[in-house]
């Protein structure tokens, strides 16, 4: 670990953000991400991840249809790694706390006849006699995808804030989460970058661990464990920093640490 993380010897291709915008996100609809899954309850963590925001803001495009390995291996590295003219932080709740809303869901079939069995909506009527003999035909076995359960969503009306670096134009509305929930985007203020020299700093922002510079000395933090990469808040670190308004971030923060080297 090098202690010489001064601005002079950081990577040459480091994105240098001269300004940032403080952006407020208002949830027009309940927002759902499967941050944690416990039995049949699906929990959203009280944060909007910055990779989700990058896709939502249209900085990177993903195809309408996924095929091949992309169906089970996300392409964050390939998509986001090359973005050097913009960056967005994970959005934190403006009031420091989030209100949630619970709702139940269940799934049905198109068919006229169906049976709700153990985590399966069975539609194979022809297997019914077999099932009545006490056997378990395949069409009645539990399915490995959710048929009913409870969702904890970020409630409508929650306000989040984030910093958007770079000067790409922002849309008025974006869609985020598994159910493509509508979120309104409002620029609150334009902030100039103030460079802070090497030292010990505490950041009030939420930061994505995968985006922090590899050589950063992290002294203490709270971990928010969500896929695809854990976030940290209340980070105290040693190093050079940038200050935008009241928010301090380590120098050299960028998507996926600059992508594939």
């Amino acid at each position: 670990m090098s202690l010489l993380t001064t601005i002079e010897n950081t990577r040459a291709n480091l994105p240098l953000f001269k300004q940032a915008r403080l952006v407020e996100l208002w949830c027009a609809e309940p927002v759902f991400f499967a941050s944690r899954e416990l039995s049949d309850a699906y929990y959203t963590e009280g944060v909007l991840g910055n990779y989700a925001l990058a896709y939502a803001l249209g900085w990177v495009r993903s195809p309408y249809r996924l095929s091949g390995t992309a169906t089970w291996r996300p392409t964050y590295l390939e998509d986001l790694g090359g973005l050097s003219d913009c960056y967005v932080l994970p959005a934190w709740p403006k009031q420091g706390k989030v209100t949630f809303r619970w709702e139940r869901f269940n799934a049905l079939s198109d068919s006229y006849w169906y049976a709700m069995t153990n985590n399966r909506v069975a539609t194979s009527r022809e297997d019914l006699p077999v099932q009545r003999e006490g056997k378990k035909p395949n069409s009645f076995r539990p399915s490995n995808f959710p048929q009913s359960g409870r969702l904890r969503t970020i409630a409508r009306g929650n306000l989040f804030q984030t910093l958007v670096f770079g000067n790409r134009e922002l849309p008025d509305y974006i869609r985020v989460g598994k159910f493509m929930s509508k979120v309104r985007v409002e620029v609150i203020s334009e902030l100039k970058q103030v460079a802070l020299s090497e030292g010990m700093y505490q950041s009030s922002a939420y930061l994505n661990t995968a985006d922090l510079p590899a050589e950063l000395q992290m002294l203490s933090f709270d971990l928010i464990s969500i896929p695809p990469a854990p976030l940290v808040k209340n980070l105290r670190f040693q190093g050079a920093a940038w200050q935008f308004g009241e928010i301090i971030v380590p120098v050299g923060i960028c998507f996926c640490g600059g992508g594939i080297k």
Partner: protein
Amino acid sequence: MSIETLTQFLAPTYENFPKGRTIGMVVLRKTQSELILRTEGSGEPMCSEFVQAGFQHKNSLQRLVMTKRKQVAPERRFGREQLRGFELLYPNKDGAVCSLNTNAPCEMCIDCFLYGFAAGGGGAQKSRVWTEDAFSLLPTSETVAERTINAIFETGTMRDENGKASTALNTSEYIKPGVHFLDVVTLKDMTADEMRYVLGNILMTPRYGAVSSRIGRMENQILGIFGGITELPSSLELVQSLYDALIEANTPLEHPFDTDLLVEMTKGAIATWTNRRGISRQLTEEQLTDVIADVDRHWDGERETFLKRLDRSYETFRKPPAKASSSRKGKKNAEPVTPEG
């Protein structure tokens, strides 16, 4: 001219990458019978939420909510019935005909291409029909009532031949007939035929919510169609702006609310939306009528030709679904394919 007036915001053919062509529609959904929309099961209250009443009037108000999934599921089924009738649903990887909630979409039919699917034989398709939670204009105190139901024996009474009393007695909340929900629907990168298909589904789906073989009638009306590169304001903001306008005009917020007045006020409220960033044009009344007539024509006399033409348009993108490989690492996509509520 009809739907072609929107050409600029329509795709000539299906493409796999978004190109920002966005069509926004304002839909008025009016209940025509009792309707039950709840997520917590029998005997529980209707889906509702406390939201800010208007923009100027910041008091909170409990409004009914028609969630996204309760709109899309019946509308998809309506279209799929037609596809099934014309044998335009394809076999899935197990050889069975495409069916919702089997975890085995055919990945090839019109419905799969338009409304998407997750977790199949090897691929996922995002929906290009974006919906929103629709809100009732009036508060739940005006729009919800209760019914007591009892089930009698075939003797016609509540007692069976042994004199035992029937236990089938229950009280249930329901949404009154004549309640208005305002809704915004967004179509992304659609071809003209795809738009006709989605519009047909919205205009012709007769019933929503629970017990839909008995109740749940709903009439949908398109109040405005916009083209642009981004989305319209949300349905919540729409009802909030209407609320302000109604208070301004001293209109009593009572059920039954005059539909004509509501339509007029909504059209007034959305007429300014073309000034918003990224919304470039709104169809005139005449063009809107033409588009609806165009959709009706395609779904009426030309239905078979139209559906088969739309079906053929995906031919170059059709691949038989890949056989599910058992060696796949990682978690299956956990998404209810057709969540109902």
